[in-house]
């Protein structure tokens, strides 16, 4: 059949098999921003439905972990909060707040495509919306836990430094890292459900290699550089620096963290887009 564009009065959308690496189609993503908003809103709204404690869970999880950390790491193992004299509970809680956001986002986004399989099979929209929304919904929990953090600082008499203006940047870095890994894992999870079993382990493992319960200053020399490959090191150190002024200003290591995070995000996004064509058939 002769395919001439001229028969169409308005320019048609082409639906054809995509070949090789495809573009990210970010413009399309922007067009579906309302859907992104509604899916995020849905996840937030539904999250604590039918729980007794409701949104208190958002606070309880990091707070109780902090209590346990303070008891075992702070009291018994005598792990200090680094060079500064920030009390250990504040130190660990200030790490747990962004960490919980990251861990939640990672777990949710990895499972997001499979969890929304019905939607993916029946409706068209840029699939990127799904993992992004699942991480964004963690922001409410983050905000609640953060308010508690501010309250604790008040109690311990610690004033935030002026560097607090950089806080959103570190939150963004945590978001980028969670999304980058989440894109890889969610796309893999569509085909290999092994991912589901891997994620809890990965989160736990990642926590041990991140300065959540201990300061990154415990490591030194070349180990420190290797450590910096983990973007969460930059996030957690940066978070504490911006809020508590505990550790020194982030040095070149933060640059490494940013580069790694962005590389994971970009590769994840392309991998995701490449696999996207099969999602509806496989999920």
């Amino acid at each position, binding site marked *: 059949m002769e*395919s001439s564009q001229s*028969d169409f009065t308005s320019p*048609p*959308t082409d639906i054809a098999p995509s070949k090789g690496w495809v573009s990210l189609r970010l413009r399309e993503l922007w067009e579906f921003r309302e859907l992104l908003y509604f899916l995020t809103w*849905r996840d937030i709204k539904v999250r604590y*439905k039918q729980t007794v404690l409701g949104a208190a869970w958002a606070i309880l999880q990091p707070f109780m972990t902090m209590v346990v950390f303070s008891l075992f790491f702070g009291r018994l193992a005598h792990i200090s909060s680094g060079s500064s004299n920030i009390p250990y509970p504040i130190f660990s809680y200030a790490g747990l707040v962004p960490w919980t956001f990251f861990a939640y986002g990672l777990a949710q986004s990895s499972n997001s495509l499979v969890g929304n399989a019905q939607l993916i099979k*029946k409706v068209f*929209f840029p699939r990127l919306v799904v993992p992004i929304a699942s991480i964004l919904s963690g922001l409410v929990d983050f905000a609640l836990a953060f308010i508690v953090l501010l309250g604790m600082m008040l109690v311990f008499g610690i004033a935030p430094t002026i560097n607090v203006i950089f806080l959103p940047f570190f939150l963004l870095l945590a978001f980028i890292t969670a999304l980058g890994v989440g894109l890889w894992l969610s796309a893999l999870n569509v085909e290999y459900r092994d991912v589901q079993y891997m994620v809890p382990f990965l989160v736990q493992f990642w926590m041990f290699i991140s300065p959540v319960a201990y300061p990154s200053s415990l490591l030194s020399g070349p180990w420190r550089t290797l450590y910096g490959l983990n973007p969460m090191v930059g996030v957690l150190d940066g978070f504490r620096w911006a809020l508590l002024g505990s550790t020194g200003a982030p040095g070149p290591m933060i640059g490494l963290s940013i580069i790694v995070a962005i590389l994971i995000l970009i590769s994840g996004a392309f991998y995701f887009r490449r696999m996207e*064509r099969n999602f509806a058939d496989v999920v």
Partner: protein
Amino acid sequence: MGDLVIRSEQLSKRYRIGALQQGYRTLRETLVDLAKAPYRAARRAVRRESKPGEQLIWALRDIDFEVHQGEVLGIIGRNGAGKSTLLKVLSRITEPTTGRVRVAGRVGSLLEVGTGFHPELTGRENIYLNGAILGMRNAEIDQRFDEIVAFSEIEKFIDTPVKHYSSGMFLRLAFAVAAHLTPEILLVDEVLAVGDERFQKKCMGKMESVGKEGRTVLFVSHNMNAIQRLCQRVILLEDGKVRADGETSEVISEYLNADRSEAECKEWSEPALAPGDETARLKRVRLLDRSNALCSSFEIREPVQIEVEYWAFNPEYPFMPILLIHNENSVCVLESAANHDPAYNGKSRRRGIYRSVCTIPGNFLNEGMYNVDVLVRVLVPRQYFIRESNLLSFRVQDSGSGLSVKGDFPKAWSGVVAPMLPWETEVRPLGSGVGTPGSPHKTIVPASVSAEGKSPPKKKK
């Protein structure tokens, strides 16, 4: 005719289906396989190979068609013909394997009612969520919100979580949101079977008005009534290919007649090859319509004629053909023999070729597929000469364009058979006195007879 809005060129879609069932394996084999699995899976992931034993099927194969602005196009075909896959490709849910489609205009697809509804959210919240999922803008939903609620008839429960809704309420709300989509091109997959009869009529009406508004609609359905009412043009898909594309009633009748699992004729040219023995052999069995033309798909109100031709070689036995009709659930609906014909029953069969025709009256068998077994035997003492199962099969369906027991009821009618039985209804007005019934006013609804005018099953020789 309006502007071109959809053009599909050589559109094909291939699916992988899982490995075929393999034979039993030993535990050792399974364990070895298990041990190797991560390696193989990794290699497959890297090389994008298919799993061994996986089968490829073409759900769509070289589909070409065009749709113009304002057309309401029906897509019909059996299960697995590729109808839903076609809509999925058009709505960009899944990519074609080869070929392409060009679509001009905003596409809204409605492949399922209630996609993305969340049971924990209220009706109001779900309207917004579902609207957004189906591609409505927030402002659009605001504007149509009252209309949607009114259409769904659940005003009172709009702020109740939908998990407390009855399934009917849930579906009504879901359809109401979907019905208020306003894309330029609407793709609809089999969603009219929603709610009770009254609501279904409302949905049909809504769909009709969407068509009249000049929007382009592609409508997949198994409901030929709905297709007949809504569409001017129909595409018939078969095994992923376009089998017919044209005027609605022509394509529908082609579809109904082209059922390949139906067998309307079996014939044996040589007695030696035919089923039977030295007493009797089958020559030919056929399904005929009222004009004696071969037919395998019958309107419910039309009679089904089953013709059996057989050779008789041995005058010793007064055998006769017997038909067993089974429905798709393998229930034997009836057994019929020519034993009420005094000119035939019990007489010896002189050598020759016999032809017996049995007529199953219209408005007797319910809708469905039927298989015909043919026996040639003597009833007493029991003795078989021919025993052939599933020689013929045919379909009975109700296209809704005439008198039948189900009338225009849009869903399946229960029962193995669907005869139109005589009903009498009388009404006694509520009298003022106690124990003295008013003079009965009697209405008698006469038995409606089939179009042919004969209602009880009758055998014809």
